[in-house]
């Protein structure tokens, strides 16, 4: 049933497949970015075609740039730095991976970042260890080095709420999977921090008229609002009259339905439809399949779990994979 497609070098810490699953980027403990390609698209074996030293410390996350903007990756390193690397051919030189942008991080570390594609531009959201969120916009579609800070805010519904200094361990961002052109640009974000208000997953939407980001929904019941969030994942929507978002906390994975039409205050209706337990410890990652009907998750107990809703709309664990030698 299973076959091996790539073998990692020693010290590999993270990996990420590109949009079509034909290239793999990995990061390692010594700060090396490696790219794997298949020699023949028909074969399913991948070999390393390029390595670049990105940083002196470990790479903790690699994210591919959307393909409309070239072959590039963003690397988050253990010290919280964020940089963009791109494969380019300059003049007559051969293809190589080059640094195109080092983002200023000052004293705060980048915990997570994701790219969002709108009809006209590429956006980048980064979540920082002080609970702040920065949204950058690419100025030139052909140059990954020119970014402009579009907005900076905290992950709170009520912007006047006061709280002490935030220390965030992790954050998770998920953009609404875009199709078509008219769709609203939004993302969901949750923190794992010492500040209750920051933690719960909130849906942020860009208000075109006032050119600002607004929180339009909070995905937590009143009693769960302070729960640290491990991971969020926005499901692709092919024809549902509502959106589906998964949020993982220590209580389990909750599945939320998010209405499409805002009320008078601009808020979207939310409904918790399931609380899924199965992972013993922390949930590491959640990935929706492309139809948005199956959720694959991994967690600290070392298993991969698949979740689906049955014909009755009841979510359940369909299958689990437990790694063995």
């Amino acid at each position, binding site marked *: 049933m*299973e076959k*091996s497609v*790539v*073998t990692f070098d020693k*010290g*590999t*810490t993270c990996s*990420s*497949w590109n949009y*079509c699953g034909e290239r793999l980027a990995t990061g390692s403990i010594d700060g090396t970015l490696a790219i794997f*390609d298949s020699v*023949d*698209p028909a074969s*399913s074996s991948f070999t390393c075609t390029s390595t670049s030293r990105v940083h002196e410390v470990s790479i903790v996350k690699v994210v591919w740039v959307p*393909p*409309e903007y*070239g*072959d590039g990756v963003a690397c988050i390193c253990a010290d919280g730095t964020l940089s963009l690397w*791109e*494969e*380019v*051919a300059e*003049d*007559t030189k051969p*293809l190589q991976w080059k640094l195109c942008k080092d983002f200023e991080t000052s004293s705060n570390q980048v915990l997570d970042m994701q790219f969002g594609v709108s009809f*006209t531009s590429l956006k980048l959201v980064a979540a920082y260890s002080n609970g702040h969120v920065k949204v950058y916009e690419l100025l030139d*579609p*052909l140059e990954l080095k020119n970014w402009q800070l579009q907005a900076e805010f905290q992950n709170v519904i009520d912007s006047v709420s006061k709280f002490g200094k935030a220390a965030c361990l992790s954050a998770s961002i998920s953009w609404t999977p875009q*199709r078509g*052109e008219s769709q609203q640009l939004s993302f969901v974000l949750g923190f794992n921090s010492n500040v209750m208000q920051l933690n719960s997953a909130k849906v942020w939407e860009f208000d075109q008229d006032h050119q600002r980001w607004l929180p339009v929904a909070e995905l937590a019941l009143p009693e769960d609002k302070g729960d640290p969030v491990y991971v969020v994942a926005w499901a692709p929507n*092919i*024809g549902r*009259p*509502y959106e589906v978002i998964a949020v993982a906390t220590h209580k389990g994975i909750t599945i939320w*339905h998010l209405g499409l039409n805002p009320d008078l205050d601009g808020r979207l209706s939310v*409904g918790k*439809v399931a609380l899924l337990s199965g992972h013993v410890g922390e949930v*590491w*990652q959640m*990935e929706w*399949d492309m*139809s948005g009907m199956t959720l694959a*998750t*991994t967690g600290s107990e*070392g298993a991969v779990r*698949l979740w689906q*809703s*049955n*014909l*009755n*709309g*009841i979510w359940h*664990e369909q*299958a*689990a*994979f*437990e*790694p*063995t*030698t």
Partner: protein
Amino acid sequence: MPGISSESGESSSLVPFSPEVGDPVVYPLHHGLKPPISRLSISWSRGNSLRVSVFLKPQSDADDSEIGGKVVEVKLGSGDGEIDDAQWRRIAYGSVSPFALLQSRKNSMSALSKMSASSSAYEADWWEYVMEYSSDINFLLGGQKLPPSSVIEDPKTILKKVEEPTCLKSAWELLEIFYADKHSQAWMPERLLDWLADYDSLLSGTQPTVHSKLVNFQKDLVSLQAIEDDPKYWEAMSSPLAVGWLDIAVKMLHLHGSYQLDQLGNREIENGLVEAVAVLISKMPRLRPELAPGKLGECYKTKPDFIKAWEKWRAQLTKLDCSTYWVQCDHNRTKEGLKNLLQIMLGNANILSSATCNWIELHISHLLYIRPFTMVSCVSRVFKIIWSLIAPIYLTSCMKQGMGLLEILLYKQPVQHNQLLLKVVTFIVLNIEICRLYELDSVSSKIMKIAGVHHWKHGKKGSGVFWLQQAQDEVCLNRIAQQLFNFVGKSISDESLKQWEGLIELLGSESRTAGGLEFLHKYFILNSNLGCSTGIGISKDPFSRFMMELLLMPLRKPVESLISLMKNPSTPQRFWLPLLYDSVISSLVIFLIGSWLKLLNWQDRPLLNVSQTNLLLNKLQELSMARLRPDFIEADLPSQALSSVRLALATNLGRAILEE
């Protein structure tokens, strides 16, 4: 599930679902690595497979292992094996021409409907075309059904062997029933019944079905002696009747022992009752135009006729049910069994429920016997659910869900591969063609943009511009124009010109709106004329020298290009001076191969006439004024550039006046 919110009331469900959820199946995932594992990471891949990255915990330095982990690909679900790759290709290629035909009909019809006021006239035609298309595809998805294997049928064979059904074809037919076949909407329950007869066996894999019940009974049949004494016989018979497979029910009834010649004499009441039920079954009114040979029932094409016949038939059933003959029948199993069959036909919900095995069968039995006059709009909602589960080809007909999935699928196709460029280009073209057929313009522009940016950034400037032009990506094209502008004012060497190979043709290949590129095209014509004469002039290559001879003839061409560029409103002002200066510089280079070969400062006779020179002088004047504005962008040129151009123009003007 698309379209169905999980809150939608279970209480109103037509068919009860079982709410229990089974335990997850746990599979081992063999990676062959030596633990401990530090982390797992997952990614969905094509073809319903999941890629799991397994990262090993870094061990001590003494550890001699060279491997840090692995990606293991897991194929989920094994149900896809029913159609092999070759068959898939046959379906894919075969479906192109029917779809192209449908598309062209659609286009011509939309053209026609624009001309005439009533579009409803074409509506009927349109659905005929859709049906034609649907049956073409249906034919591709599977062969024809096999004819009966022998003329003389074995009376004990209750299930005939037909072609092996496939999920794909079954899904397509469901689509046809609900979406395409507008003519048979009135008799949709009957169409569902036919569908179930063909495909019920597909459901047997995961759950009991009427079909599997019959298969099991068929095995027992050989060993059964007095068949009517066995409760299995009666049970097995009630199921096909419940889902409307009348011929099977009647055939099974005829296996009843009372039909045997030696029995007829003393079991005539019993046999009479059996026969009466068999006759009533075979006379069941059916709201459908016709029946396949061998199928039972009486067809009614219109609803009023059907209702009339139905009421009459129901009256006969009730009459038989209340008949006094039952008392005289002393074979209890037969009596109960027959009464049970009558109850099915009279629409007893409990008995229908026990005679059917799953919700689809139960649903069809309800449509047949409980609510025969309802149309099926309520069913279609329920069926929407199963499409999304079993039908990969429903993509095109189920607008929102299908098109959505198709968009995602197309977007995820690779547009690049280092080794197999040609194959990939073919692939992109094919994908774009699919997008065109399905009017997915936004997806095709995305695909073309991905290809364009990829080529552009990987040093294939020409292909990059080509795909971006196809994608009509104004933003990127304008950015490219800006980048190219930066070359203006610097003499373009052969080396850097090579990078733009093919670009000149591309830029001029079709009319476009991107102003910057129109300018560039003209600029390139100018530069290739100037640049070529320059480069070739220095070259010692005999071919190049020959080319130089040729180039000397159309010397006025660069002049025309220059003038047209300067006249063109799309030429950015910041490039006026570089252009003019470039001409002077170029002409200075050309001077190396002959002092007579100059452009603006033409020694023998002026290349620019009076009006042309005046135009350029005016532009120069305009430029001097513009320089005073704060937003003026200064070209990266020597400080004397403006004055040297002005001098050259003035000299030329003088000569031109003299000439004229």
